[in-house]
Every structure is written in C-alpha cells, then in structure tokens.
C-alpha cells in the first residue's frame, strides 16, 4: 500500500517547522549565513536573501528537501491582500522521471511507494537532474551523488510518519496511506468550495501517473509554482528514437545511392570506352 503525504496549503502558516524538521532528521547541512562581515564597509552586510517574500532557499536542492513558498497577492491599490503558503518537496511520482532515467538502478521505489536514491549505488551521472519535471533532485558536490527527499525512508519503514508531517503544528502536512489521504483531501476540498473558495483544487491525482505527495491549493497550481501540464520526459522516448532511426536510415539510403550509383555509372563509362 503506497504511503504519501497530503499538503493542505489552506491551513499552512509558513512557519517552516517542516523545513527545520527535515534538516534535523536527515542531518542536512544548514543554509549559508544571512549576514557577512564586510571588511571594506566594516559592518555586517546582508547576503543570501532571496528577495522573494520569506522564501529562504528559493528552490529544492541537494540539502533542501523541503521548500516553503510564499506567494504575496495584492490588488493594484493594495487594499486587498492574500498571503499564500505552500510547503513543497519531492512528490514521489508514480511515473517518476528520475527513476526512469537512472542508468544504474540507484533510484528505486520501495514497497511503500516512495522513490529512494541509494547513495551507495549512485555514480553522479546527473541524468536524473534534468529528467525531473519538478526540479527536485540536485547533485551534492560533497558526496558526488544526487539527493532528494526520501519520504523519510528510515522512519516510515519503522512505523513512524515523516519528520515534516510530525513537526507540522497546523496539520497542513499529513502522512498516511495515499487512498485514505485522498478521501480526506476530497472532503476538505468540498468543505472549502462550500465556504466560497471556488478556485480551490487538488493537485496530484493525474499528474505523472499520480503523485504520492499531493496538494490542496486555493489558487491555480501555477501560482504555487507547480506545472499544470506535466510531461514525464520518457513518454517522448519512442518518437525521439524513431526519428533518430529514420535519420540513420536516410543516411543508409544516401550511402546506397552515392556508393552504388557512382560505382555503376563509372563502370558504364568504362564499358563505353
């Protein structure tokens, strides 16, 4: 039975407890400092700020397996405002581009449905990195291998939930059986629609074969930085291969024409002589 997470962004407060819990449990290095002493100015200067609301990592990466997005929506005269939050991570796709692309079998799906990178097998070829449509996987220069969220592989295989879900103070992130999470998500969506949130939607039922980590958004997925039309890259492999083979056949035909025609033409000339 696949396990996963349901992220109800409507009750997320952007506290980043999930980011911290993830770093702690998985022993990921901290972010670079936000201030640096400038020897010329002789005072601390601000560095490493994204300038994008309260976002402190900007993206998912080898040491950032959770990324809380902050979306500020204001009307032109700023009389109306809304602040949306969304805690993002690897979605553990059922049709996972990274897993499909891995040439060594380092990326595997476990019995609980999570996509897991076996660090001792990964060779650092980096092909999974552009193969993930969500920009999740990144290379670590320290280990020479790629890293991403494991769905707390060690915890969930010992009966615990994920660290981020455990730390979430509002229940925005919940961990469990995907089927149960889906029915809870449907109920919550119906409730929100009833409260007048017409744009509310669930993201992750159809995308990439279904996402084991899926979301409830109050606005279009694009607003939260998620793809509205996901194409798992390997879906294009048959056509891409076929066109390449056609190119090779065209060259074979060119060779047949060039080498044979010229040969026989000149033979004819010799015969005429």
């Amino acid at each position, binding site marked *: 039975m696949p396990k996963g997470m349901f992220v109800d962004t409507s009750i997320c407060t952007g506290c980043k407890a999930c980011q911290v819990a993830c770093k702690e449990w998985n022993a990921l290095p901290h972010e670079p400092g936000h201030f640096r002493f400038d020897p010329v100015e002789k005072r601390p200067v601000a560095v490493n700020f994204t300038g994008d609301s309260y976002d402190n990592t900007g993206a998912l990466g080898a040491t950032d397996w959770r990324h809380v997005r902050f979306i500020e929506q204001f009307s032109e005269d700023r009389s109306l405002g809304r602040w949306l939050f969304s805690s993002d991570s690897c979605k553990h796709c059922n049709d996972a581009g990274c897993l499909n692309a891995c040439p060594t079998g380092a990326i595997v799906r476990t019995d609980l449905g999570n996509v897991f990178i076996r660090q001792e097998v990964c*060779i650092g070829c980096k092909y999974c*990195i552009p*193969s*993930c449509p969500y920009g999740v996987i990144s290379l670590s220069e320290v*280990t020479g291998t790629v890293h991403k969220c494991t769905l707390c592989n060690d915890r969930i295989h010992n009966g615990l939930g994920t660290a981020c879900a455990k730390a979430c103070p509002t229940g925005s992130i919940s961990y469990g059986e995907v089927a149960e999470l889906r029915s809870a998500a449907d109920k919550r969506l119906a409730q929100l629609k009833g409260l007048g949130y017409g744009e509310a939607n669930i993201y992750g039922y159809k995308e990439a074969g279904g996402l084991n980590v899926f979301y409830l958004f109050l606005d279009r997925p694009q607003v939260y930085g998620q793809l509205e039309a996901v194409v798992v890259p390997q879906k294009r492999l048959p056509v891409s291969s076929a066109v390449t083979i056609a190119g*090779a056949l065209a060259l074979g035909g060119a060779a*047949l024409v060039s080498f044979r025609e010229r040969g026989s033409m000149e033979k004819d000339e010799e015969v005429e002589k």
Partner: protein
Amino acid sequence: MSPEVHVPGWEWYYVAMYFFIGGVSAGAYFIGTLAELFGGERHREISRTGFYIAFPLILLTPPLLIADLGRPARFWHLLFHAKSGFPYINLQSPLSVGSWALLLFGGMAFLSFLDNLVSEGKLQSAPFAKAYSRIPRKWYAVVGSIAGFFVAGYTGVILNVTARPFWAATDPLVGALFVASGASTGAAAIYLVMTWRKQLADPGLPGFDLFDRLAKLLELFLAVAMVVLAGKYAAPLMKGFTAVMFWGGAVLLGTLLPLVAGWYVTRTAESRIPAERLAAVLAILVLVGGALLRISMVHAGQVQ
C-alpha cells in the same frame, strides 16, 4: 512562477566533447561499412580509412564520460548492477542503453581495426592472424555500424528526453541531427587522413563526396527544422556566444561553407578532386563545426 527544472551541470569539455568524438568515430565506422557493403572494391580504401579512425577515437571517450561523473570510481555501475553484480540495463534510459552500445561499438571497432592490420600484413607474425581472418569481416562491421548509429544518435536522444525547456522543445530532432553530424564529421576525418596519406586520387572519392554532401544537406535541414520547431524555446541558441558557436561555427563554417566550396571546386576544377590543401582546410572546418554543434547544444539546454 513555474518550477525551474534543474540543470545537470554537464561540462562541455567532458560531455559535449564525448558527444563529438563519439560521433566522429561512429560516423567514420558506419561510412566505412556502408562504403564496403554498397560500394565494393572501389571504395575499399575509404572503408579501410574509416576503420583505422574509429577505434583510436572511441578509446578516447570513456575517460571523458567517467571524468564527468560525481563518483568516477563507480562507473562500472553503468554496466553491472551494484548490488547483484549481474549485467544491468534500463531500457527507458538512453544513458543506460547507450553505455552498452558504446561497449559493443568499441568491441566491433577493435575487430575491424585488427582486420585492417591483418589484411595490410602488419600483423602477419601474430599467431592469431590466420585464424582471425576467417571471421567474416562484414558481419561485425554490420553489427558495429548499427551500434555506431546508436552511439552517434543516442547522445541527442539523451538531451531530448529531459524536462529542460530547450532540450524538450527540440525533441525529437536532435538524435537525427547528431547522426547526420556524425556522418559529416566522420567523413571529414576520413578525408583528412586520406589527404595526409596523399590518397586524393582514390577511385572511391566521387561517390564518397556525394554521400558527404547528402549528409551535410540532411544536417542543415535538421538544424534549421530544430530551431523552427523549438520556436521561442530556441532563445538560448539565438543570443551571445552560443549563437556564434551554433550559427557561425556549426551551421555556416562547419556545414554550409564546406558544402558550397566542395561543390564549387568539383564543378570548376579540371579534375573532380579538390586540391589537397583546400580539402584539408574544409575537413578541419567540418570537424570544428561538429564540435561547436555539440558544445552549443549542451550549453543552450543549461542556460538558466
């Protein structure tokens, strides 16, 4: 705001150079095979030259590939499963299938290289030379050529089958483009060696010239079609140094100019065979253009 698909960080001096050298080697090999299969004895020197070029060049490529890995010592995981030790292939991953194709191609290129040495009498004293010459040359040349087409083309499929905007938008043409470029650069390498060995009066050259021109026409067509197909996503190929490399280097100097110059020379000169120096210069232009094609394509997909 849309998610930024991460860049792999493939270095041009490793990955793009592998794409290029692998393409030249594979191109020289399949030209050698096709010339022998379709052209017979008249084209024997061309196929011999192709087989001489292919093996030493493909030997250069594994170090390039391995050097780009984050964990180079684990390169063998590409062929053997790290846990079970059994041979491993992932049919959905062009990188996995390509590793096996490269191994197969290298093996066949080695056999053809040996065969050249044996048939030229350079390996006569070796005890296996006699037994060796009984293996039908054409069999492994055909197997090697199929692997060679794969080696030249899968590098383009690798780029196309990703989620990076430029590489995804040029799908499905880059594989075929790289095969055509492999043919044209492989032909240039054969030309260069034959010029150097003063074989420009070879009876096989007229047919070879025609093949070379057809390959360049296909390459030009695919390069332009790829840019048209990509539309706004082709932007990284349209600005700065990448544009100079692609349009100036790969398309103009590496394909169009040699095509026109080669055609002009064969039309105007008394002999159908171009002068030695010009032939060498054009061949070098084609090779540099082929390298710039790979570098610009690998780079354009990784521009943030």
